[in-house]
C-alpha cells in the first residue's frame, strides 16, 4: 500500500512540475474562405500533444499552456477541408496570433475521427478502413433511421436490423449477439442480456456524425468487435444557440401486383425531430426529442416510438471538460415473424395479429477530460445502460424479461512521451445484470486493461501496435480470458496517397441469451447451450486511399477474415434452435469506393462496390444471408438552392438462407429519388423511396419496404 501511495505522490509531483513549466499560447479566429463568416465548433488540435479546443460562436479559439517548441496545428470541421499548419513556434510567456480560413468541400477528404485510436486523429493516419457519415448526409438522404443512414457505406449490409460489416453476421430474429459494437460517444451500448443493438436509442437530429471502423478490433474495444465498430458521435451544443425542427411524412404505395393488394387504408409514416442547444458561458446544453410513427406497409407492422435526450458540456477550464448525457427511448411495435403466404405476403396469420414488442432504453454517461500537461491527457467515464424488452414472446406475462443493466467505468490516458510515440492505455470495467423467465438470472463482469502505441517511425510511416486483455466472469458459472493483439502500418508514399495495413484479433463472448435461452414460440423450440465458447476472428486488411486534388478520392481495400467457433443458431429438422459453436469460416473480399465532384462540384458522384466470398470451411458452403456483391451509386446535382439526388442500391441474391431454403429469393435492386430546396432557414425535401416498387425479402417471408413517397421540411435558427 505504501508503495502505491509513494508511486502516486511521485507521479503527481512529476505532473505538477510539468505544469509549472513556462508556457506559451495561441489564439485566433477561423472563418469561411468564401463568405468570411466566422465558423463555430471548429476542432483545433496541436499535433503530437493532447492539447486542443474548438471555436466559440464568433469563431475565436485559444490554446494555453503550450510548452516552448515548434508544433503543427490541425484544423478540421465537417464540410470543410482539413488544414494543417506546420512549424508554429511557441515561446515561453508569448501568445501567437493566427487567423485561419477554411475551404468548404462536399467530400470529406481527411476528416478527424476518434474511433480508430480512442483519441482524435486524422483519418489519414489510421491503419484500419474507416468510413464516416456526417449529419449533413443523413439529412440529404432523408434517412429515417440509423441503418438507412449507414446503407451507402461499402461493406455494410443490413438484414433487417442485423448489421453485417464485410459479411460478419447473418441473421437472427431478435438481433442477438451483434458482431458489431455500437457506441455512443465512444461508450459501448450493446444490451446486457442479448448483446444486441437498439438502433432507435437516440434521436437522429442529435447525431453529429457516425464513424464506421471495419474489421476486427478487440485490441481496443474488447468483446463484440468481430465485424467492426459503429461510433455515433453526438453534437456538441452550439456556441450561439441553435433551434432545429425536422418533420417528414410519407405514404406507402400499393404493391405492384394486384393480387397482393390487401388493404384500402392509406398506409403512412410521420417523423418529427426537434433540438435546441446553446452555450451559457462555460456550460453548453443540448436537448433533443423525436417521435416516429408508422402504420407500416404490412399487417401488424406499426411502430410508435419516442426519443428524448440531453447533453451538458461543462468547460471547467482550458484543460478540462465534463460531459453529461441522458438518452431515453420507448418503442412499441407490431411483432411480425413471417408472412401468411407468398400470395398474401403483406398479411400474417390470424393468431399472430396481436403479437407486439416493446422496448425501453435508458442511456446515461458522464465523461471527464483532463489535460494534465501538453503530453498527458486523462479521460474518466462512468456509464449506465438499461434496456428492457416487453412481452413479445408471451402475451400473458409482461414481466417475462427483467431490465438488462450494464454499468461501465473506464479510465484512459493518452501519453506522448516523445514526439514520435503516442501511448493510449487504460482499463475498462463492465458489470452486467440480466434476467428472464426464459434464461434465468445472471450477473457478470468484465475487466479489461489495454495498451496501444502509435509510433511514428518516419515522418510518413506510422506503426501501431496494441493489446487488450478481457477477463469475463459470469458469476458462479464461467470465467473466460481473451488476449487480443493488433498491429498496423500507415504509410504516405506520396502527398495524396495513403497505404495502410492491419492485422488484428476480434472476439465475442456468448451472451446470456445464447447460452441459457429455453423457450417455445410459434412451434419453434429454443434449447440452451451453457458450454458455448467465445467466437474469434483474425482480420488482415490492406488498403490504398488516393485523393485526386480536392475533387475526389478513391479507396480500395482487400480484406480477409478468419473465423473460429462462430456462434450461430442451428435449426434442426424438428424446428429446434440451439446456439452452437460450429463454423470455421473465411471471408475474403475487396471494396472499392469513389467520391468525385464535377462541374465545380455541382455534380457529385459516389460509388461503392464490395465483393465477398463468405465460406463456411467446415461444410464447404457459403455462409448464409451474405450477398457476394453489393454496392450503390449516388449522383447529386446541385443547382443553387435546388438539389436532386438519385441513388441505386444493389445486393446480389444470397446463395444460402437458413429458415426457408426453398423460398424464392431475388437480388436487391432499389432506386431512390430525392429533391431538396433551400430557402433562408428553411429546407423543403421530397423523396420517392424504392421508386421502381421492387419487391424483395432479405429475410425469408418478410417483405421489404415497398414504394413510398415522402415530403419533409426543416427549419434551423442559428448554427
Amino acid at each position, binding site marked *: 500500500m505504501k508503495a502505491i501511495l509513494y508511486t502516486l505522490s511521485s507521479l503527481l509531483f512529476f505532473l505538477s512540475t510539468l505544469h509549472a513549466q513556462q508556457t506559451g499560447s495561441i489564439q485566433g479566429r477561423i472563418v469561411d474562405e468564401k463568405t468570411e463568416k466566422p465558423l463555430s465548433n471548429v476542432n483545433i488540435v496541436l499535433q503530437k500533444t493532447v492539447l486542443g479546443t474548438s471555436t466559440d460562436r464568433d469563431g475565436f479559439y485559444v490554446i494555453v499552456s503550450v510548452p516552448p517548441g515548434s508544433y503543427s496545428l490541425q484544423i478540421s470541421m465537417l464540410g470543410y477541408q482539413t488544414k494543417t499548419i506546420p512549424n508554429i513556434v511557441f515561446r515561453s510567456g508569448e501568445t501567437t496570433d493566427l487567423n485561419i480560413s477554411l475551404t468548404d468541400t462536399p467530400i470529406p477528404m481527411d476528416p478527424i475521427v476518434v474511433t480508430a485510436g480512442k483519441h482524435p486523429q486524422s483519418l489519414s493516419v489510421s491503419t484500419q478502413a474507416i468510413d464516416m457519415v456526417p449529419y449533413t448526409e443523413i439529412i440529404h438522404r432523408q434517412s429515417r433511421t440509423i441503418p438507412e443512414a449507414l446503407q451507402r457505406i461499402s461493406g455494410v449490409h443490413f438484414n433487417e436490423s442485423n448489421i453485417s460489416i464485410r459479411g460478419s453476421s447473418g441473421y437472427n430474429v431478435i438481433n442477438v449477439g451483434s458482431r458489431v459494437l455500437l457506441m455512443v460517444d465512444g461508450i459501448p451500448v450493446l444490451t446486457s442480456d442479448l448483446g444486441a443493438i437498439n438502433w432507435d436509442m437516440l434521436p437522429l437530429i442529435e447525431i453529429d456524425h457516425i464513424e464506421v471502423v471495419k474489421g476486427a478490433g478487440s485490441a481496443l474495444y474488447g468483446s463484440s468487435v468481430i465485424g467492426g465498430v459503429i461510433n455515433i458521435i453526438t453534437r456538441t451544443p452550439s456556441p450561439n444557440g441553435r433551434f432545429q425542427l425536422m418533420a417528414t411524412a410519407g405514404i406507402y404505395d400499393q404493391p405492384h401486383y394486384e393480387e397482393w393488394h390487401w388493404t384500402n387504408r392509406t398506409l403512412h409514416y410521420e417523423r418529427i425531430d426537434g433540438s435546441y442547444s446553446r452555450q451559457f458561458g462555460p456550460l453548453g446544453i443540448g436537448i433533443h426529442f423525436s417521435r416516429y410513427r408508422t402504420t407500416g406497409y404490412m399487417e401488424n407492422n406499426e411502430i410508435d416510438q419516442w426519443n428524448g435526450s440531453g447533453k451538458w458540456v461543462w468547460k471547467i477550464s482550458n484543460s478540462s471538460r465534463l460531459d453529461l448525457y441522458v438518452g431515453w427511448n420507448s418503442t412499441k411495435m407490431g411483432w411480425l415473424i413471417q408472412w401468411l403466404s*407468398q*400470395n398474401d405476403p403483406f398479411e400474417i396469420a390470424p393468431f399472430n395479429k396481436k403479437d407486439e414488442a416493446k422496448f425501453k432504453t435508458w442511456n446515461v454517461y458522464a465523461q471527464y477530460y483532463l489535460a494534465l500537461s501538453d503530453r498527458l491527457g486523462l479521460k474518466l467515464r462512468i456509464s449506465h445502460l438499461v434496456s428492457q424488452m416487453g412481452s413479445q414472446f408471451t402475451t400473458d406475462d409482461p414481466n417475462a424479461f427483467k431490465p438488462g443493466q450494464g454499468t461501465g467505468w473506464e479510465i484512459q490516458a493518452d501519453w506522448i512521451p516523445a514526439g514520435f510515440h503516442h501511448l493510449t492505455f487504460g482499463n475498462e470495467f463492465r458489470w452486467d445484470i440480466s434476467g428472464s423467465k426464459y434464461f434465468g438470472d445472471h450477473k457478470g463482469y468484465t475487466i479489461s486493461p489495454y495498451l496501444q502505441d502509435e509510433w511514428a517511425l518516419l515522418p510518413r510511416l506510422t506503426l501501431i501496435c496494441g493489446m487488450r486483455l478481457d477477463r469475463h466472469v459470469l458469476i458462479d458459472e464461467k470465467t473466460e480470458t481473451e488476449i487480443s493483439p493488433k498491429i498496423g502500418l500507415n504509410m504516405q508514399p506520396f502527398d495524396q496517397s495513403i497505404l495502410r495495413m492491419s492485422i488484428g484479433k476480434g472476439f465475442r463472448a456468448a451472451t446470456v441469451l445464447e447460452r441459457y435461452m429455453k423457450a417455445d414460440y410459434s412451434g419453434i*423450440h429454443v434449447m440452451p447451450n451453457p458450454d458455448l465458447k467465445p467466437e474469434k476472428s483474425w482480420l488482415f486488411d490492406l488498403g490504398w486511399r488516393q485523393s485526386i486534388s480536392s475533387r475526389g478520392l478513391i479507396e480500395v481495400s482487400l480484406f480477409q477474415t478468419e473465423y473460429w467457433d462462430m456462434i450461430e443458431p442451428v435449426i*434442426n*429438422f424438428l424446428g429446434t434452435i440451439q446456439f452452437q459453436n460450429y463454423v470455421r469460416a473465411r471471408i475474403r473480399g475487396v471494396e472499392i469506393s469513389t467520391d468525385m465532384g464535377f462541374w465545380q462540384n455541382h455534380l457529385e458522384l459516389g460509388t461503392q462496390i464490395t465483393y465477398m466470398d463468405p465460406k463456411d470451411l467446415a461444410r464447404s458452403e457459403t455462409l448464409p444471408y451474405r450477398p457476394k456483391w453489393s454496392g450503390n451509386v449516388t449522383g447529386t446535382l446541385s443547382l443553387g438552392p435546388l438539389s436532386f439526388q438519385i441513388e441505386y442500391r444493389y445486393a446480389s441474391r444470397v446463395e444460402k438462407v437458413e*429458415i426457408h431454403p*426453398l423460398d424464392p429469393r*431475388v437480388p436487391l435492386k432499389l432506386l431512390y429519388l430525392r429533391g431538396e430546396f433551400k430557402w433562408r432557414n428553411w429546407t423543403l425535401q421530397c423523396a420517392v423511396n424504392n421508386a421502381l416498387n*421492387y419487391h424483395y425479402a432479405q429475410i425469408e417471408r418478410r417483405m421489404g419496404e415497398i414504394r413510398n413517397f415522402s415530403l419533409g421540411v426543416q427549419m434551423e435558427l442559428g448554427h
Partner: protein
Amino acid sequence: MKTPNRKIRWSIHVSFLTGLILFCFTNCRIDHGLEPLFSKITGRIIYTGDAPRRTDEIRLAAAHDFPPKDINELLFSEQIPYDQDTVDYELYLPQGEYEVIALIWKEKSRSWNISDLIGVYGGSFIGDQLIPTYQPITIPDKQTVLKGIDIQANLNRVNRDATIEGEILFEGAWPEDTGAIGVGAFIEIPEQGNVIDYFFKSIDINYSIPTWVARTAYQLRVHKTDTLEYIAVLWINQDYDLGALKDIGFYRDSLDPSSPGVVIIPEGLDRIENIDIVVDFSETGK
C-alpha cells in the same frame, strides 16, 4: 454571374437528363422482384377416423425430396380444416418436381414431426397402417394448375391412446458427429437403409431424446390395439440429415436377445413400462 449561354447549356443538360429518366421509366421493362405464385395443385381430402384432442393443426406439405433434410424443406399449405369428412383444397406451388404431397398432423405444444403423416397422394391404408407408396407430381410452368390431387387421410394413425415407457442405456463413447437421437415404435421391422420405410411403418417417433448422456427415460404414444414388432433407437448425424438416419439399438426379446422383442399392450391397460433398450456405441459402427 452566369451568362445566358451557360444558362441555356444548363437547361439543355437538365432537360436531357429528365427526358432520359422519363424515357427509361416509360419504355424499359421494369423488374419488380418477387411475384405471386400462379401455379397450384387442387384436390379433395377425404378423412376417415377422428381427430385426436391434442391436434394443433393439419397442413398439406409438398417435398421436392423425401425425406427432406429439414422440416423447412417442406412447402406447407395454410391450415386444413379437419372437422368435416371432405375438404377441397388448393396449394400454390412453384414450378418443379415434387416427390411427395402429404398431409401432416401437428400435436399441440410439439414441433412438426415428419413421421406424423396422415395421408399421402398416391398412398393408401390397410386398416390404420399407411402403405409406403406415393405418387410424384410435376408442375411444368408458372401457370399450371394440376387438378384432382386427391388424398385419403386417416386420422386414426395419430389418434394414439396408449403409451410405452422405458429407459435407454448408452454404452461406449458417443460418436463425435451425433446430432440427435430418436426412438421409434414400428408396426413391422423397416427395411434397413430405406428411410422412407421407417416413416411409413412407424406408429410414433420421438426425437427429443437427450444426447451425450449415459441413460435416459423415454415415452412413445401408440394404439392400444397395436402389435409393435420393433422398438428402436435412431441416430441422426450433426447435419440432421434424415436421409442418413439409422438404428443403433432395439428392444430385445427376453428369450432370444438377438431378435427384436414384440410389444403388445395388455387388454385393459393403456400403459406399458420397462421397455428398456441398450445402445452400445462400440457395436453400432458409429
